[in-house]
């Protein structure tokens, strides 16, 4: 989202009317943009907007537990419009706080993966040779390790090296690092593949002949050509990052369940899917689906609009 809005600001200055026109002419994109903005805004304003503070254990009361949503059952209370879970946590507030946490984690993880993956992919594809071989074999090794194991490793090493009093404080870095590390390979491989094709094209060779530095050639000429595939992966990864985080929390190396993210809420909800307390699963699930859907639709549009070949 930050990427999307940052990029669209940049777009206004560079290519304004064209892009704006394509944006306005697609009602689905407008709807996706509105939904994304809404979810992001509500999530980041959760300390102001949320009726409860679900991350503060002192505010929880088991006697408030398992209340149904107010509109579907007379047992519901207006204090908990979407009901509560078995810890007495307000589902609405949990979703707001959880979404914020999930957004921060996914954005950070995708950023880590993109920076790492694109740089390594460019270097690998452009220089080829031994550099390429080393980077790609490292990528092979990386792919062998599921995110779960990477997370366990980072978690263990971090705890071994730094003596941290509270595990919670490092949990978020562990998750971001683990997801980022397990995603970079797709960027690197994709970028490398395109660069290998691109670098033999006349315009790149021409640039080389007139003595431009390799770094400049890559950033100026090669990078724009890989924006399309990279954006496809990045938008997909944003949603996947939230989902991976849920899977990690399932294995005890995710974010602590005392401060649940959206993914953790869904993982917890999965356990009570057949219990009849549907609100614990359905609302976080719907929020995640809406968020991922909106971001991806926006990404689709952005990719088509950004691609010079399509204009």
């Amino acid at each position, binding site marked *: 989202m930050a990427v999307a809005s940052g990029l669209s600001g940049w777009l206004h200055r560079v290519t304004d009317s064209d892009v704006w026109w394509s944006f306005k002419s697609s009602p689905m994109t407008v709807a996706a943009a509105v939904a994304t903005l809404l979810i992001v805004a509500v999530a980041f304003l959760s300390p102001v907007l949320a009726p409860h503070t679900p991350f503060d254990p002192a505010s929880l009361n088991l006697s408030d537990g398992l209340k149904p949503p107010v509109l579907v059952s007379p047992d519901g209370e207006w204090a908990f419009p979407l009901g509560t879970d078995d810890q007495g946590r307000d589902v609405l507030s949990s979703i707001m706080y959880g979404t914020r946490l999930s957004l921060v984690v996914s954005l950070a993880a995708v950023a880590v993966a993109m920076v790492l993956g694109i740089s390594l992919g460019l270097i690998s594809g452009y220089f080829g040779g031994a550099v390429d071989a080393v980077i790609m074999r490292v990528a092979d090794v990386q792919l*062998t390790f599921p995110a779960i194991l990477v997370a366990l*490793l980072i978690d263990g090493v971090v705890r071994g090296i730094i003596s941290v009093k509270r595990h919670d404080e490092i949990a978020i870095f562990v998750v971001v690092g683990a997801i980022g590390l397990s995603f970079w390979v797709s960027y690197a491989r994709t970028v490398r593949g395109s660069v290998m094709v691109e670098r033999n094209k006349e315009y790149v060779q021409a640039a080389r002949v007139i003595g431009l530095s390799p770094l400049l050639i890559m950033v100026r000429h090669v990078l724009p050509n890989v924006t399309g595939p990279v954006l496809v992966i990045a938008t997909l990864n944003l949603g996947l990052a939230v989902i991976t985080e849920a899977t990690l929390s399932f294995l005890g190396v995710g974010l602590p369940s005392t401060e649940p993210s959206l993914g953790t809420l*869904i993982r917890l909800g999965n356990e009570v899917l057949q219990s009849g307390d549907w609100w614990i699963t359905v609302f976080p699930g719907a929020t995640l689906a809406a968020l991922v859907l909106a971001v991806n639709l926006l990404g689709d549009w952005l990719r088509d609009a950004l691609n010079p070949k399509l204009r």
Partner: protein
Amino acid sequence: MLAFILRRILQSIAVLVAVGLVSFSLFRYVGDPINAMVGQDTTMEEREQLREKLGLNDAAPIQFLRFIGNAARGNFGLSYRTSEPVGRLILERVPATLELSFCAAVFVLFVGVPMGVYTGLYPRHWSSRLLQAVSLIGISLPTFLIGILLILVFAVMLHWLPSFGRGETVRIGWWTTNFLTWSGLKALILPAITLGLFQLTLIMRLVRSEMLEVMRTDYIKFARARGLTNRAINFGHALKNTLVPVITVAGLQLGSLIAFAVVTETVFAWPGVGQLFIQSVQFSDIPVMAAYLLLIGLFFVLINLIVDLLYFAVDPRLRSQGGSARVAGH
């Protein structure tokens, strides 16, 4: 070409050794298997003796060398969890995972590529937009949730398909197959869809975006000007040109299908290597984890090798220009 393959095989061995070494240095962070290996009343002293006997107190490199030494002789040791030979445990599970991944890959390619071509050819059509939106469901919810929802609908509510397991299998030598019985085939459907759904979205979107780009190129415009049929243009020219990135990603995704099978297999109690791996992590079953990672490493190395070879086959530019220098570069 031969030099290239030899080189890659040598590199692959280096990769596998690296995988092994990294695995062993991280195993001690996964947990202590001893407490799960003994009953509640076993004294601390007895637990420590067992730990010592198993060599768990040795440094990671020593444990690694011991493992490699045995593995080179085809001996992966005994599982801490089941006391059975690791090699056989894994071999018994490989067919289940490969058949599941294969079905998922078929599903992804035969549904995802046509969907991508269609939405790429008619980007403004309402049905393309609908397909695109629907395909996003695959990446909007965690796999475990999608799997359970499919089970609830197709097994519990409709009673059409089994809720878990492989159904009846037929044994051919050491291989067990789902493909020869009706119940085995039925059992494959839900897990294959669950496993493939995410990759389906990715492949479809990738093909679409590549098609969109290719369709705007002069090359296609010329083809149109020459009066070629739409069919020839779309499939003969356009699709062929989208293949390089698609092959890269598809190859990668096939590999990650096997790695991703971990979650799907857990949800569907599918007796494959992914499920075995998760059970081993929960148990800190080091011999099984090490062997699994080596196996997955082998798969990825093979897949990457094939992908690179396909590159040469598909994109003539990679062959004609700077031929031997590039080959040496790999």
